[in-house]
């Protein structure tokens, strides 16, 4: 049961993130929801890579041969970098919306519909 804790956290975090995206009206809060969802996905990848008692895969004078495959860590790093780029672009959109519309409330950002 205990090893499942990270995965329970993943599910909880992704539900919190998605619920924030769906229910909140403030753009910044929506972006935070996306970031929480990203964090959940990163946690998922990292927990997949965990091996109890495993060591870093460096062969020089290694105390044991029980090593961790470094792929999930590499994936997570890449995904974090992509997340940063995504957040930066989203926030810059929010800045322009604020300048042009004077609001970041999604109920009032619907000029395209008219």
């Amino acid at each position, binding site marked *: 049961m205990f090893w499942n804790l990270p995965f329970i956290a993943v599910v909880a975090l*992704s539900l919190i993130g*998605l619920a924030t*995206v769906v229910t909140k009206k403030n*753009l910044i809060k*929506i972006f935070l929801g*996306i970031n929480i*969802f*990203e964090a959940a*996905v990163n946690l*998922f*990848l990292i927990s*997949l890579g965990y091996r109890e008692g495993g060591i870093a895969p460096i062969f020089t004078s290694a105390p044991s041969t029980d090593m961790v*495959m470094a*792929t*999930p860590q590499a*994936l997570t790093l*890449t*995904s974090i970098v*992509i997340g940063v*780029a*995504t957040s930066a*672009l*989203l926030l810059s*959109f*929010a800045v*322009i*919306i604020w*300048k*042009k*519309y004077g609001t970041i409330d999604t109920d009032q*950002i*619907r*000029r*395209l519909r008219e």
Partner: protein
Amino acid sequence: MNGFLIEHAPALLIMLPLIGAFATPFIGRVSPRIRSAWVILIMTLTTLTALLLASDVFLNGTQIYVFGAANPDLAVPLDSGGIPIRIIFTVDAMSALMQVIGAICGFAVLLYSISADRIHSGLESFYTLFLLMIAGIMGMVSTGDLFNFFVFLEILSIASAGLIAYRIDGGLAVEAALKYFVLSTIGAMVILVAIGIYYGEYNALNIAMIASRMQFTLLDQIALVLIIAALAMKCGSVPMHFWTPDAYSMAPSSITAMLVVASQASLYGLFRVVFTLYNVTLNAMTVGWIIIILGVLSMVVGVTMAIPQKNVKRLMAYHAISQTGYMLLGVGVGLAVLGNQPLMDSFGYIAMEGGIFHIINHAMYKGLLFLTAGAIFFRIGTYNLNRMGGLGHSMKYTMIFFIIGALAIAGIPPFNGFASKLMIYESVFAFNPVLAVIAMVVSILTLASFVKVFHSIFMGPKLPEYETVQEAPAPMLIGMAVLAAIVILFGLFPQAVVDGLIAPAAHALSDQSGYIAAVLGGA
């Protein structure tokens, strides 16, 4: 020399646009003219590489490229215990076809864009993002590694979102880009969850490796649902289509034409996952029907929403949704009978070929239509159909290109849309006559809608406010002419195209063991 180029072509296809993209801002500081020449040079080289690689793949079969290996075709390192650990590009006939679509469309759109987007400022960033989009598309369709697919998907979404918002337009374009980008970020994260599931189960990210170990457990079914939902959203199929009309109508027209190709790269990803990753292990009938239903819904909802539109680009965007439905329908029928060889031979392959043929045709004529809409906007400054009229007197060539595109999308011979739609009708009729009837009705409605658009843009007396309107500039016409020529050529010689390009792609897509053997060796 030629052998060396072909051997490294998959890597060059990503390298060239990436180098071009990041050098563009610096070269742009020298002079705008040199920057344009540079971007055209990069795009020409990319197109030539794609054509060279495609000719080799269609002649000699699947080509793989392993990054960082001693030898580009050494997929499994000797000391890794049979696991392909490196990032790998697997270019089979289907990937090569998509690369050719991306390259030709990119080239024509770039020629058009050089003169159409001249009036904007900040063009260095525009062309940087444009080339990044090309790199993203090329990467998505050639990669043989799931995580790599996710990375290129994100490169493509970030570049597209930046370009959709490019014309800010009082915040409207940013609103559209925001909608697109929030959805695609969530979609990409969902795909990443699915990739994590595969990794946890099979300890691999390589598509061929996962495919060879595929069990179709409950977890695999969850991953399949996640991936289908996310990629169907990215390719703009109903019920996740609401970003499409906004994004397509607010982006600059050249970018809209590229967004069509970008959606099709997502469509390619969907087909790749369903056919190569799962193939017969999944319940082909059920998943096939899910894709068919998505396709039929897209066709019907897309065309009915298109008819009342007043904005010409919104209207075309809804038609793009509707045409995506045809591809889903054709390939979905192929999937539904997968594993049943007699049915596959009698109509399954034809349905898949029709669907895949429609992908390339759609990219050409829809790109052409968006470019004509852009040319009209370039001259009269509005997309509103009610304020247009009588432009046939002054913009003759644009009118001819519009007619070619409109007849092709409505499936009138001798244009390419007819060829692929006929294949879809015939094969779908053998599968389920009702679906074929729906497809034909949608086609007729499409024609009706375009007759209306044609009439309100080009017919009627010359309007006083458009007295001084000129024909679009020559580079824009050349860009449109390239696409129009392909539309006509494919329509006149459909059999040659199907035999030469489409049938190998359809067979490569449905042949999972061939794909696995090309990467892992043996069979």
